[in-house]
Every structure is written in C-alpha cells, then in structure tokens.
C-alpha cells in the first residue's frame, strides 16, 4: 500500500465539495429473531440461541416477526418516510461462512419505508436536513472469530470460530440520499445525523442503539467533486464505523485522503475501507473490481408484507415527541443556549435533568448539578453520567435541601460525594455526618463575635466603610463553623454587628 500524503482539511475544502452517503444498521430490541423464535439476548453461550431456521438447516423456513415489522414502520414514520402499502423481502445472494443460508433475507427494490428526511441540529443550532432514501428490514449474520492470524481478519488466520447466536437478529438498514451542500461541515453533519438517529431510535423504544455493543453500526460513503461540478466522484465506503466521534473522524480523514489523491492527479478506487480508532485513519479493504452481483430476487418463502393503512396511522399517532423537537422545547423551558443544550445532549444528561426536574428540582439547579459536579465525577471515574450511582430523585433532594437553606453548595457537593460512595440517602448522610448549615443565630452570633474580636484591624476597616473587607471575616466564620454556615447570612450578621449598611 502506498502511503498518501494527506492534504490539509482547509485546502481540501477549498477545491472540493464532499458528497456523503450514510448507511446505518440498527439491531432491533425484539425478544425473538427476525424469522424464528430464538432469543436475542446478548452474551449467551455461542450457538445456544439457534434453531433449524437461523442455522439455515435444509428444509427450514422463515416466518416474519411482526414486532420487527412494527418497529420498522415506527422508524419509517419517525423519519418522515412513506410506508409501503405492499412490499416483499428479497434474497441477497453471496457467500460467507457466517451467513447460514449463503443468502441474506433482506429487502431490495421494495423497502418498507422510503423518501423521508431527518432534520439534524449542529452545535451552533443550525438545522441541516438529511434526506432519507429508504429504511428496510433484514437479518443479521452470525459472528466469525478468526484465530491465529496477526490481524484478527480472515486472511492469515489458522481457523475461524462461528457463533450463530446473532444470525437472524432483526436489522433495520437506514440509507440516506447523497448528502451534498454541507461543505466543510460534512463530518459534523455525519456525526450529528448518527447522533440524532440514535436518539430517535431510543425514543421510539425499538432498540437501545448502543454503538459500543454493535447494536448500531455505520458505513460512511464519501466522494469528492470539484466545487461547482454536477457529477459525483468515485466513492469509498468506510465500513463499521462504530462511535459518533469515529464517524466524524472517518469522514474527515477520507476528505483529506481523497483530496490528496485527486490533487496529485490520481484516481479514487471504488473500495471498502477499514477505519482505525487509534489514529483515525482508514486503510484499503477489499477492492470492488466490479459491482458485486447479489442476484436479488423476491424471497419465495415469505408472503408480502402489507401494512394496513389504519394500523400505520395508529402507529403514527402513538409516536413519541421526536428528540429534536423535545430538545428544543426543553431548551426553551430551561432557558439555555443552543451550545449549552448541545453539551447537555453530548453528556447524555437530557433525560437525567428531566427526571430531576420531575422529582421537584428547579431547572437551573438540576442542570447545574448534572453538568457540573456530577459530570466531573463521571469524568474522573471514566463512566457515563447515567451509570453514576446516584438517582435524579437523590439529586432533586439535595437541591431541595439547598433551596430551603439546610445546605449550601459546598455541603451539597459533600453530600453528593457520599451518595456516590453508597453511604445512603442524602438526608441520612446530612444527619450522620452533621453536615447541616449552622443556622442557630445564637451559635452563629457567637462565632461572628469571636471573629470580630480576633480580627480587630479588619473590623475597623469595615467600620470605616471598606465593606469589601467583610469577605475576610466571612471566611474566618466559615472556617470556624467548618463550612456549615450560610455565607450570605454570616456577611449580613457581620455588617449588622459593625453597624454598617451592606
């Protein structure tokens, strides 16, 4: 392989217009497989969730999973697609040992959903419309593990292990129309699209769409054409890009690579490419010398799928609020900027904040705790916010204790630390550790008197009008009360006792 010197990103975009096509596979969260009754749970003993049908044994036949069809229709509707009145499955014929029948039961020219769009919002709030070509139903393949080679790929392996537990798990493949006009924001659009799609799938409740678990996988097709040209260039297809960040990086890398090849007078080969997480690069996979001939034909073992219009309309009525609409509503309700909302989304905090508000907290403090202290802890632990061992109800309780003056922010952080350390409910912790603010005016008064006495010089300055110097005395009181005092009240008391107006 010759190493191509990359062209800088800005340079590439000065000359070329990127065209992208994104193909996303989503594993549906149905209890059983697409065409048989086998379980779909992840992590089972290899080949323990199989039957004659998903093993492709001679004589076996498929039966369509109705829940999978329902999920596909929901996805189609949420993507503003038309839903086919009548469509068929088709056989996609090709050989691979992890595909039991050596054809994949998929859909070809009659997808269940087609002609839609998804509006995605970029970080600065700009909305970009990604047109959807189609969403179709198909089955997943088994999983090959190649043993003995250096690369983990089949080439050079000594033997391969096949696990058919995944074979036949329902997949929805969602294909965009060519995405043009994104210019230098193309990689950002790609990432935002996949992120938006993931939110949508989760909101529909049809899949957990966890990319790290392979429940959602993305192929990035990319080509460049000279600015102003009407004809698309030759594309490359970067396979299995499996995180949001990787989608963006893969698109970016391919833009720079294509530009380098084209600028030096070379031609892009139509090929599949592998993405490398370590450095964000792609390398050549198998070259498609000619378009692979899958010899599609209608699956004769299945009857056509004809979703009744009334049923489709019923599903449409039952769709949840779409994530982007919901986010915009929440953004307005919470009074935050597009940028902050994006950060909240990226942190996976939207639902946590909503739940915290539902548990009684005000929007500002719910957001403050999740995006501040809790994000910091999650970051330190290297886990997602949702996995922190603290519930929105507990966060709301802490916020309430602060609002009623029982805690201040510093004490609040202290309580959070102990909740996360699994020491119990916020109230128990406050009680056990004596973290309640010292609000007994007598005790506080004594502490203030002592501080004034010990710092006569500062007290004089304050008396003479230098109110700003009060901070030092507040600090002394807070220290004496181990932080368990309300700083604002302490300040008031100091000024009061020294006869100064605040």
């Amino acid at each position, binding site marked *: 392989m010759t190493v191509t010197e990359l062209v800088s990103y800005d340079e590439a975009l000065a000359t070329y217009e990127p065209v992208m096509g994104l193909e996303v596979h989503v594993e549906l969260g149905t209890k059983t497989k697409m065409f048989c009754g086998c379980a779909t749970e992840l992590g089972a003993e290899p080949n323990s969730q199989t039957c004659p049908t998903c093993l492709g*044994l001679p*004589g076996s036949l*498929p039966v369509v999973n109705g829940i999978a069809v329902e999920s596909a229709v929901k996805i189609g509707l949420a993507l503003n697609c038309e839903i086919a009145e009548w469509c068929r499955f088709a*056989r996609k014929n090709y050989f691979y*040992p992890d595909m039991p029948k050596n054809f994949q039961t998929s859909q070809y020219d009659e997808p269940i959903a087609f002609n839609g769009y998804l509006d995605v919002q970029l970080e600065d709030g700009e909305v970009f419309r990604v047109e959807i070509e189609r969403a179709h139903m198909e089955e997943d393949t088994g999983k090959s593990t190649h043993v003995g080679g250096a690369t983990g790929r089949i080439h050079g392996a000594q033997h391969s292990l096949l696990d058919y537990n995944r074979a036949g798990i329902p997949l929805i493949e969602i294909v965009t129309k060519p995405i043009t006009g994104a210019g230098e924001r193309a990689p950002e659009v790609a990432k935002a699209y996949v992120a938006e799609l993931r939110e949508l799938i989760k909101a529909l409740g049809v899949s957990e769409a966890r990319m790290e678990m392979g429940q959602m996988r993305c192929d990035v097709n990319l080509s460049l054409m000279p600015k102003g040209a009407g004809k698309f260039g030759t594309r490359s297809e970067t396979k299995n890009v499996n995180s949001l960040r990787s989608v963006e990086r893969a698109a970016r890398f391919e833009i720079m690579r294509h530009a380098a090849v084209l600028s030096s007078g070379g031609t892009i080969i139509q090929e599949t490419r592998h993405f490398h997480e370590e450095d964000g690069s792609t390398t050549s996979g198998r070259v498609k010398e000619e378009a692979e001939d899958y010899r599609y034909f209608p699956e*004769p073992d299945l009857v056509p799928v004809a979703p009744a219009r009334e049923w489709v309309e019923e599903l449409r009525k039952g769709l949840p609020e779409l994530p982007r609409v919901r986010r915009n509503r929440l953004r307005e309700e919470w009074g935050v900027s597009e940028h902050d909302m994006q950060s909240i989304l990226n942190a996976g905090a939207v639902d946590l904040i909503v739940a915290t508000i539902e548990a009684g907290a005000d929007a500002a403090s719910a957001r403050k705790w999740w995006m501040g202290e809790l994000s910091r802890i999650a970051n330190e632990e290297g886990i997602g916010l949702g996995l922190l061992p603290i519930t929105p109800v507990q966060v709301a309780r802490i916020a309430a204790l602060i609002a009623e003056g029982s805690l201040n922010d510093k004490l609040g952080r202290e309580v959070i630390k102990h909740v996360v350390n699994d020491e119990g409910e916020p109230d128990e912790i406050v009680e056990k550790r004596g973290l309640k603010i010292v609000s007994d005016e007598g005790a506080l008064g004594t502490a203030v008197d002592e501080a004034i006495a010990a710092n006569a010089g500062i007290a004089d300055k304050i008396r003479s009008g230098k109110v700003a110097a009060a901070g030092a005395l507040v600090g002394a009181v807070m220290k004496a009360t181990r932080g368990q005092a309300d700083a604002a009240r302490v300040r008031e008391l100091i000024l009061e006792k020294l006869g100064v107006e605040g």
Partner: protein
Amino acid sequence: MTDIIIKLTAAEIAEKIASGELTAVEVTEAHLARIEAVDEKVHAFLHVDREGALAQAREVDAKRERGEKLGPLAGVPLALKDIFTTKGVPTTVGSKILEGWIPPYDATLTKRLKDAGVVILGKTNMDEFAMGSSTENSAYGPTGNPWDLTKIPGGSGGGSSAALAAFQAPLAIGTDTGGSIRQPASVTGTVGVKPTYGAVSRYGMVAFSSSLDQGGPCARTVLDAALLHEVIAGHDPLDSTSIDAPVPPVVEAARSGSVAGMRVGVVKQFRGEGYQAGVLQRFDESVELLKELGAEIVELDCPSFDLALAAYYLIAPSECSSNLARFDAMRYGLRVGDDGTKSAEEVTALTREAGFGPEVKRRVMLGTYALSSGYYDAYYGSAQKVRTLISRDFDKAFGQVDVIVSPTTPTTAFAIGERVDDPMAMYLADLCTIPTNLAGNAAMSLPCGLAPEDGMPVGLQIIAPAMKDDRLYKVGAAVEAAFTERWGHPLLEEAPSL
C-alpha cells in the same frame, strides 16, 4: 399371510387394525419382509427404518389395547420421500452432499404422520434434490419400475411410486415441483396428487424451488390418497406460504365419486408432437368414459401453456441456485478436502464438486445466470410474466369448466439410460404437469390403462382450481370405479410379480 396383507389398501388395513383383525406390528412386519424380498431388485428405498417403524407400530397396538381412539390411518405403513427431514433418521435428498446427515428435527409433514399413527417404513429414492423425471439422477443409483425393471419409475419421486407398485407400502409421500408426484404415478400405474400450493406444509421439506414445491399423497387408490391427504394437509404457522383455511372435504369426495353434470375441459395444447400414440388412445378413451358417466366435455384453448416449460426452466433453476447455496460444507453433510491446508473456499468448492451431481450443477449454473444483473429482466422477470399468463389461462378455463383432464405425461416409462444424455428429452416428460405448478392449483394422476404398444401404464391427469382439491377426488373416484369395473380388477394386478 404377507402376500394378503401387502395387497390390502390403506383403508382396509386401517379398518382391520381398528377392529383387531390385524395388529399394526403384523402389518409392518409384512411390509418389511416384502421390502427385504424385493427391494434389492427395485431399489425404492434409500434407508429402511426397521426399528423406528416397529416402535411406531407397537405404540399404535398399545393405544388400541388401551381403548384409545385411533386415527383413520393409524398403523398403516408409509414410504417417505427422502426429501422430508426425519429426526434421528438420515435424510439425503438423493444427494451425496447430505450423505450421513442426521436431521435434528422432524418436518411438519413427518410430525403429522407420526401423530396420526402412520408407520414410516423408511426413506425413498429420488432424483437428487428432486431434479429429474426418472430417478436416474439419484446419487445412490436408479430405481426400477416394478412393471419392467429395465424402465424408469418416473421422477423425481420414483422411489415412492415404485414402492407402491411393488407392494412395499400402501401409502407414500411425494413432492411435486414440476410433476414429481404425478409423472411417477402415471408411469407406475398408481395414484398421485399434487395439492394446491400451500395446502401441505413445506417446513422440513428440503427446498428445490420454493414457489413451486408441494408435498402430496401417493397411493394405489383414490380413497387411500384422500385419507393421506387429510392427514398431511392443513395450516402450519412455521410455513408462511401455508394456506390458513379448512382442508377441502377430500375424503368425502373420494367416497362419493361422480362426474354427472360436471363440465370437463380438454386443452388443445396438451396434445400433438411428442405424444405416444398409445397414451393418446387411452386418454381419448378416458374422455369417452367421462362422457358416458354424464360429464359434458368442453374444448379449451390455453395458448400460454406452450410457454410453461421454458418459464419453468428459468424459475426452478433460479430458485434452486439460491436454495442450494447453503450446502457449503460448513455446518452439515459432506466435507471434502479439509486437510488443514486448504481455505474455507477451497473446501466448499471441493465438496460441491464431489457432492453435487451433473443435473444439479447444470441447474445451479442456469439459475445463477438467469438471476444475474443485466439478465434478470430477460429471464427470471419474463418467466414470472409467463407465470401470470398461465394463471390467467387457468382462471379463464375454470370459468367454463369444473376440471380439466389431460394425459399426465406424453409417453409411458422409457428405458433406464435412454434419456440421460438428452436433458431436453427428459424435461419434456413434464410438459403436461408443469402449468399446474406455475399456477399453484391442484392436480391428480390416476391409471387409465396400459399402452397397447408396450404394455406400460398410462396416467390420466385431472386438474382442479386452487383449493378445490376435493374435485380431483370426486372425479378420480368415479373414473377409478368405472375403469376397475371395465377391467374387472385394479390395473396393478396386471403388473408382473417380482
């Protein structure tokens, strides 16, 4: 005793078992003895499941002793085409590629037979993957026609039809993709029915051409076929193409045979070049007989039937090229060349080279070509259009008549080896049977005499609209009764003793 038992019809056997006159074990042993005596010559069976058959027979006898109600075919032996999976019993589809494969599951049909107390004697020989009209394409050697062992018993279900004609079993199961039940029935002087597509579950029936394949009953009498039809037909949630509707009243129809007042169609296209004189003679006599029995004969023109054979030889190979892709040596069956030095692709190629016979390879190649991009519309696409035209011709015809009759196959049984080098001549055997598969309706073949020139059986085909399978039995029973009266005995009594 054996000689008496093996000549009984299924209906008679069931009655004698129910009344206690015979035990299922006696009946089974008589048939196993017959198989042992003649199958070396006939070679109808690929596998005889002696233990399984006797165990099932004992269970039927025990049930009867306990006073439990027996089904209408309980204890009756049956020869099962080796295309249906049988849990724990080899299933080869007549191919080397599945040699040694023991299925872990029963086909729905197998299960229904077992549940009905039918005794499965073993698995019968067939053309590899049901591709053929003579059973010569079996990887395990040909089957002889009990009328003349140098001649073919038809195909692909030649093992099932020969087992009936050789009195090795009173019942058999076949599958019919282009005539594989009816043509063997025709050339062996037995009865075979291809039910309406979707009437009998295909779950566990190894696929050749999914949109055409249909399992069905084979027997020596129309009533026996009806009794078996009723056991195996009916909706199966494991087969999406299975019809979710009541089974037509076939047994009732077989018990009340009549054609009086019926309109019977004779299609212009089922005649002409390639038809043996003796076959046409017997067919014309059958039409005369129908008239005598009170039927009105109507001449029909179905022009698209001339295209049926061509369409069939695009659709069936196309589907088979995809259905057979799974035989890749990875999970089951034959594996050749796996010596630790070869890649998976090489092992697959070597296995297929050794495991598939020439006819299977020919059809896989034909189908692969017909489906390839750029040719799809011209071949597979056009063939599907022809299929629609054939259905329309049938619809039009059945607007005018209740059933259609024709010769089942243009000639009587030909000699083993005669057509093996001429696939086109072989394909012509299915000229009259294929339109029914393409349209998905129902048809029967039953004996209508011997051809004068060679003394071999001739079959009469009766075709009915989809889901009107009962009409086949109504007409078939009437024709059978009239011919038996005319001949003075069932036709098979004229077959030489083996």
